[in-house]
C-alpha cells in the first residue's frame, strides 16, 4: 500500500510569543532571583521530605529477604531516589545529590547485570542517611572518602553489567 508522504510546514504564532513581548516584562536575572526566592520558601518542607523519602527506601530494604530484592522493589527505590536527586539538586545538597545519583546508577547497573543484590543499595542508603539534612554531617574528608568508596561499588557493578550487555 502506498503511504501518503504529504508534509505540511506551518509557522503558527503562539500566544506565548505575543505575551513575552508585551511591555512591563522583567530581566532574566530579576525573574530568576524572584523564582529562587520563591522556592526557598519550600526549603524546610523539602528537606524534611528528603528524610521521609530515605525512610521509605529503608523500609523497602527491611522487607527484603536474604539480601535479595524482590521484583518491583528496585523500581520503587528508583522513583524515591529520583525524588531525592530533584530535592537535593534544587536545594544545593551537593554530596547528597552525588550519592542519590550514584544510587540511581548502581540500580541501573544491577538491572543490566541481572542482579538483585540489596547490599549495594543498602550501602548507598546508609550514606544518604548520613548526608541528609539534619544528619550527622561528616567532615568533608570523610564525605569524600565515602563518595570514593561508593564510586568503587558502582564501578564493580558496572563492570559486571558490561559482559551482560555485550551478550545481549
Amino acid at each position, binding site marked *: 500500500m502506498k*503511504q501518503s508522504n504529504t508534509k505540511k510546514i506551518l509557522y503558527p504564532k503562539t500566544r506565548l*510569543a505575543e505575551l513575552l513581548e508585551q511591555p512591563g*516584562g522583567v530581566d532574566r536575572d530579576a*525573574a530568576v532571583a524572584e523564582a529562587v526566592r520563591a522556592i526557598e520558601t*519550600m526549603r524546610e518542607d523539602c528537606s524534611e521530605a528528603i528524610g521521609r523519602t530515605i525512610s521509605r527506601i529503608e523500609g523497602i530494604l527491611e522487607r527484603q529477604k536474604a539480601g535479595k530484592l524482590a521484583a518491583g522493589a528496585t523500581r520503587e527505590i528508583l522513583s524515591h531516589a529520583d*525524588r531525592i*536527586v*530533584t530535592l537535593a539538586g534544587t536545594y544545593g545538597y551537593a554530596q547528597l545529590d552525588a550519592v542519590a545519583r550514584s544510587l*540511581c546508577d548502581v540500580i541501573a547497573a544491577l538491572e543490566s547485570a541481572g542482579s538483585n543484590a540489596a547490599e549495594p543499595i543498602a550501602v548507598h542508603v546508609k550514606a544518604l542517611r548520613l548526608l541528609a539534612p539534619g544528619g550527622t554531617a561528616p567532615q568533608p574528608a570523610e564525605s569524600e572518602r565515602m563518595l570514593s568508596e561508593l564510586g568503587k561499588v558502582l564501578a564493580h557493578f558496572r563492570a559486571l553489567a558490561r559482559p551482560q550487555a555485550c551478550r545481549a
Partner: protein
Amino acid sequence: MPQQRANLNNATALLVDSDHFTRGIIAHMLRGFGLEAPVLLSAGKEAQEYLQHAYVDICIVESMLPDMMGTDLVSWIRRREASQIRYVPIIMMTGYTQFHLVSEARDAGASLVVKKPVSAQMLWDRIVWAGRSNRAFIETADYVGPDRRFRSAGPPNGKGRRESDRAGSEEGAARPSGQDEEQDRKKAAV
C-alpha cells in the same frame, strides 16, 4: 551582554507531574517569573480533560506519568486538530534515570526536553526560547510537532551550575542542519 527581558505576567501554564514536591518547586518558579496561577495536575487523564476546554500558553509535562507516558500526552496534544492547543510549546521533564527517553519525547512532539532537577535559570531560558523561536511546525502521517531539525542554535546554553543543565541544553540543537531544512522546505507540499 544585554539582559533578556520578557513578560510572562499574563501567560498561563499547565504543569503535569506525579510528584507533589516537583509540582511545588516548579510552580513556585513559575510564580516567581510572574505567571499568576499555573494549573497543577498529577496525571495524564486529568490533563486531557482539562485541555478539552482550556488553553494554556505553555505545558510542562513529566516523562512518566502514573496513568500514561508523558509522550502519550504530548502526542495527544499535538493531534488536537481543531484546537490551537496543538501548537503550544511543550517542555518535557525527565527524571535523572530517564534521560534515555529524550528521543521518544522529541518524536512525540515535545518542544524541549530537560532533565530534573530543573533550575530556575534553565526553566526561564527554555520558556523564553520556546516562545521566541520561530520554529516550523511539521505535520506528516508519522509526526506532528515542532521541526526536529531546526536552524536555530537552540536554547541558550545557560551557565547552570548543574550537570543536568548541560544535559538539558543538548535537546535544543537536535540537528542544526540548515541545509537539510531548506531542502525539506523546497520539497514539501505546503
